[in-house]
């Protein structure tokens, strides 16, 4: 018996474990009702037959953690009897392995050449090549958006068409027919369509396989191919598919067709979830799998929340007809002791509350999550700083972080520019001085400025590092290090691939004695991140650019500078220390599926708790399977969407909370703005009702 399994499984769990009597089972129920635990017991039974293999399918890697932990406890290596995958990773691998099948369909202009896979970032790079000239011609002129968001929304449309399963040629029409607003804005949807068509054409001409093409090729060509079918049915005997509601319809279609050839299948569907709808998750489509399974079971128990928290959740689901007592509120919701006017006071109050919890008997063992719709850098910094001052370790989950926010990466980029004067990329004096201080041990900003020499107010930029200006204010060893670095940069070969250049810069100079990366493990990771990001970018380039590494490196650095290649999705592989307070955006937290004892909900006045991101060029609902084509998206639809979203979020959070929620807000938010969103109203209504029942009214 391993530590992660339920000690005394209930009846539904017992039935779920029985893969012989329940070979094709659809298990649904709310979060924390023991579904995943039951699936582990089932897996344990399946593993008793070492000849049979199991595929664990999850929509996102973070949801696979219980399975990894289980295998770790059993001492089983992943990949032999059990394989844990997301459908995207399976699709990507299969396209690569079965490329000859795709080649024989002659979809691409050079079918027999290797496919070049695009990431979201490299897709943006190619989309920019198409959209920028369109903008120059006056297209997209009614839209004010940062360019990288414009590109990413167009790409999002293309992905949605593949995930939902409608032709990409219908995107513009679908968006336009749902749009209510000025006629002039309608034109932008034909611009979107035009960009999408050109992008697809460009990909087919150049063997570029973006995410949407991966899905289409997999569904339309590979899946029905006999060689492929023979392979995939030989690969896996059993399937455990967790959180099916978080996957898009194409995955459900594939599973529906796969079901008859599997020895056993367990599909687990979380009720009231579907948090990844912005990525195409479709719980309604997931429910269609229930009919295709031979058996279906429903779980209702909650193994996590205390009874009062469960009562609170029931009440908030139907606030109109609920009569909350003051006792219930006191047991389940914590408030600041005083009214908080400004955001820093709120952070102080959070820190204070956490200190109080930690001081309780067993308090240092309690799991705590601080949740907010978005995490800004200043929030991250201030909160972690104030928690660390009271001795609390913090772990932060961010959906993505910008490469250029990392000082090591920023330094490497600037030094790369100085090593390639032919790029003629200008670096500001200040940035150059900061990079030098980040690189050279013992150098401060003042001396770095001295080394860089006179500052020209009319042209405060550099394209090359000047010879170090000797000064009695700079110790000779610092001048030596500067000169050594400069000489090394100047002697580098511009034709050397950037990742190799970076690796040498790191190994031969910056990690040596006298430089700041020496023995600094984080600097190693950051350098590796930049190298890998370049490698991914470089393999998506056409052969002529790949052969001219100087141009490839220049294109990469320019793409970073313009924000096209910016994100690094660290959260899925960053290890979180166990005993720390987690700070996370609400959606990322829900997708971790990891209950805690206490939750702090910050900024409950924010509309970010339920509103979609402003996305004028795409629409997750209109492009979903559940939208009637041609129907207009009205303000009422938006309102209903927001309310459903808020309900789902509140419910999902409470299902993952054991003891208490701390609902915190300040009169003015981080940006100094007053916010009065719906979540705040929900709490106010709840308190009013409780007060009325206390006063006997």
């Amino acid at each position, binding site marked *: 018996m391993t530590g992660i399994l339920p000690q005394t499984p209930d009846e539904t769990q017992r039935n779920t474990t029985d893969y012989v009597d329940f070979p094709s089972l659809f298990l649904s129920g709310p979060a924390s009702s023991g579904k995943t635990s039951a699936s582990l017991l089932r897996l344990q039974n399946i593993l008793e037959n070492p000849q049979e293999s199991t595929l664990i399918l999850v*929509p*996102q*890697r973070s949801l696979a953690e219980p399975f990894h932990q289980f*295998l*770790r*406890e059993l*001492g*089983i*290596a992943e*990949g*032999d*009897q059990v394989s844990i995958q*997301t*459908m*995207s*990773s399976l699709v990507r691998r299969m396209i*690569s*392995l*079965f490329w*000859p*099948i795709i*080649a*024989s369909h002659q979809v691409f202009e*050079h079918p*027999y*050449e*290797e496919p070049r896979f695009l*990431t979201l*970032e490299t897709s943006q790079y190619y989309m920019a090549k198409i959209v920028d000239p369109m903008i120059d011609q006056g297209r997209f002129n009614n839209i004010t958006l940062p360019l990288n968001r414009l590109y990413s929304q167009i790409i999002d449309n293309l*992905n949605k068409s593949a995930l939902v399963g409608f032709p990409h040629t219908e995107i513009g029409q679908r968006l336009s027919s749902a749009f209510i607003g000025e006629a002039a804005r309608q034109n932008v949807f034909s611009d979107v369509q035009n960009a999408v068509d050109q992008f697809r054409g460009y990909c087919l001409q150049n063997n570029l396989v973006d*995410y949407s093409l991966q899905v289409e090729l997999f569904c339309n060509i590979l899946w029905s191919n006999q*060689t492929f079918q*023979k*392979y995939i049915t030989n690969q896996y005997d059993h399937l455990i598919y967790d959180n099916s509601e978080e996957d898009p319809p194409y995955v459900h279609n594939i599973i529906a067709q796969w079901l008859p050839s599997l020895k056993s299948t367990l599909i687990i569907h979380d009720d009231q979830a579907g948090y990844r709808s912005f*990525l195409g998750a479709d719980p309604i489509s997931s429910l269609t799998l229930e009919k295709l399974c031979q058996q279906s079971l429903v779980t209702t128990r909650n193994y996590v929340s205390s009874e009062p928290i469960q009562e609170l959740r029931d009440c908030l689901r139907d606030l109109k007809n609920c009569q909350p007592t003051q006792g219930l509120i006191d047991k389940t919701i914590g408030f600041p002791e005083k009214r908080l006017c400004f955001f820093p006071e709120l952070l102080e109050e959070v820190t204070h509350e956490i200190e109080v919890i930690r001081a309780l008997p067993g308090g240092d063992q309690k799991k705590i999550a601080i949740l907010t719709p978005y995490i800004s850098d200043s929030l991250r910094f201030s909160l972690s700083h104030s928690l660390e001052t009271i001795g609390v370790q913090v772990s932060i989950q961010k*959906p993505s972080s910008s490469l250029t926010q990392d000082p090591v990466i920023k330094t490497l980029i600037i030094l790369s520019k100085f090593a390639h004067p032919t790029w003629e990329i200008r670096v500001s004096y200040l940035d150059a001085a900061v990079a030098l201080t980040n690189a050279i041990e013992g150098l401060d900003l003042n001396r770095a400025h001295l080394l860089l020499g006179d500052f020209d107010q009319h042209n405060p930029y550099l394209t090359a590092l000047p010879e170090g200006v000797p000064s009695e204010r700079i110790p000779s060893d610092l001048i030596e290090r500067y000169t050594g670095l400069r000489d090394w940069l100047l002697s580098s070969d511009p034709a050397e*691939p950037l990742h*190799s250049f*970076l*690796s*040498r810069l*790191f*190994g*031969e100079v910056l*990690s*040596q*004695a006298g430089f700041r990366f020496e*023995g600094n*493990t984080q600097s*190693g990771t950051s350098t*590796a*991140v930049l*190298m*890998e990001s370049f490698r*991914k970018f470089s393999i998506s380039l056409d*052969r002529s650019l790949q052969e001219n590494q100087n141009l490839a490196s220049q294109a990469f650095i320019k793409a970073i500078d313009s924000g096209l290649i910016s*994100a690094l*999705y660290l959260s*899925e*592989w960053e290890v979180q220390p166990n005993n720390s307070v987690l700070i996370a955006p609400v959606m990322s937290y829900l997708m971790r599926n990891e209950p805690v004892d206490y939750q702090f909900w910050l900024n409950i006045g924010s509309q970010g708790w339920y509103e979609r991101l402003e996305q004028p060029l795409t629409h997750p609902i209109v492009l979903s399977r559940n939208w009637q084509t041609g129907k207009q998206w009205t303000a009422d639809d938006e309102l209903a969407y927001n309310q459903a979203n808020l309900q789902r979020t509140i419910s999902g959070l409470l299902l993952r909370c054991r003891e208490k929620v701390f609902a915190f807000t300040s009169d003015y938010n981080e940006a100094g703005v007053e916010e009065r969103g719906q979540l705040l109203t929900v709490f106010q209504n709840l308190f009013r009702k409780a007060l009325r029942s206390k006063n006997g009214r």
Partner: protein
Amino acid sequence: MTDLISPDFTFSQSNLQTFDYCRRRFYLRYVKKLIWPAQLVSDQQYIQDREAGVRFHRLVHQHFLGFEASLLRKIADGDPDIRVATWFETFLASPMATLQGKLEPEALFTTKIAGHPLSAKVDLLQIDGENISIYDWKTSRHLPKLSTLQKQTQSKVYPLVISRALNLGQPGYETARLRMIYWEANFPGQTIEIPSYQNDWKKYQLEIAASIELILSLRREEFVATPDEKKCAWCEYRSYCQREKIAVDSKDIEMTDLLEGLTKIPAEAFDSWG
């Protein structure tokens, strides 16, 4: 026994070979998981060779998946490195292309040794009646010596894992034999074969179990740096260990598969789509 190595740590020929190479390197790569991005070699040739080798392996894998040779030839001809098409043609013309029996390409097998998983990912496993062979496709520039291959951890780990996965160590299999076959695309006529039998697997098991137990018993400071400083020239940690500054040329390489097991940034860190 220290608790540096978690109970689920999977041993493989690659990490055991790293331990043999340098204990400190094993510690930095697999225990500390230190990403240290210094170049292994000074030139791009090594990387190009390796990438071409990976694409050749994929073609052979596709061949065993049942694709038409004519289709795969077109893919090989489209490869940017002309050596890939040559290697593949050599392969198709060799007896390797028409092996009989049950063929399992790119298969992963795991067993437990000293309480830990030990895994082997083989290029091809052939079970043809009594004859069981493990094939390893290679694209080396120089033909390795039989004695070098015999000493390599791979030549012990693979037969050990496969013999256990197929229960060949059981009574009744006393005469069972496993062949480890190294086939070099650049030297197709000079296949190297290392047969092994029950006695050998027992020996391998003792040897590998002893290595694993030794690794498990070491404290952090006992993962010492190799005394043979020449080895540091091909190690990504050389600047971390303050051993060498500059990478050497790949033609001086003594050891193959240097990149195997290298600590890397996971691919999913670069994409947001699931």
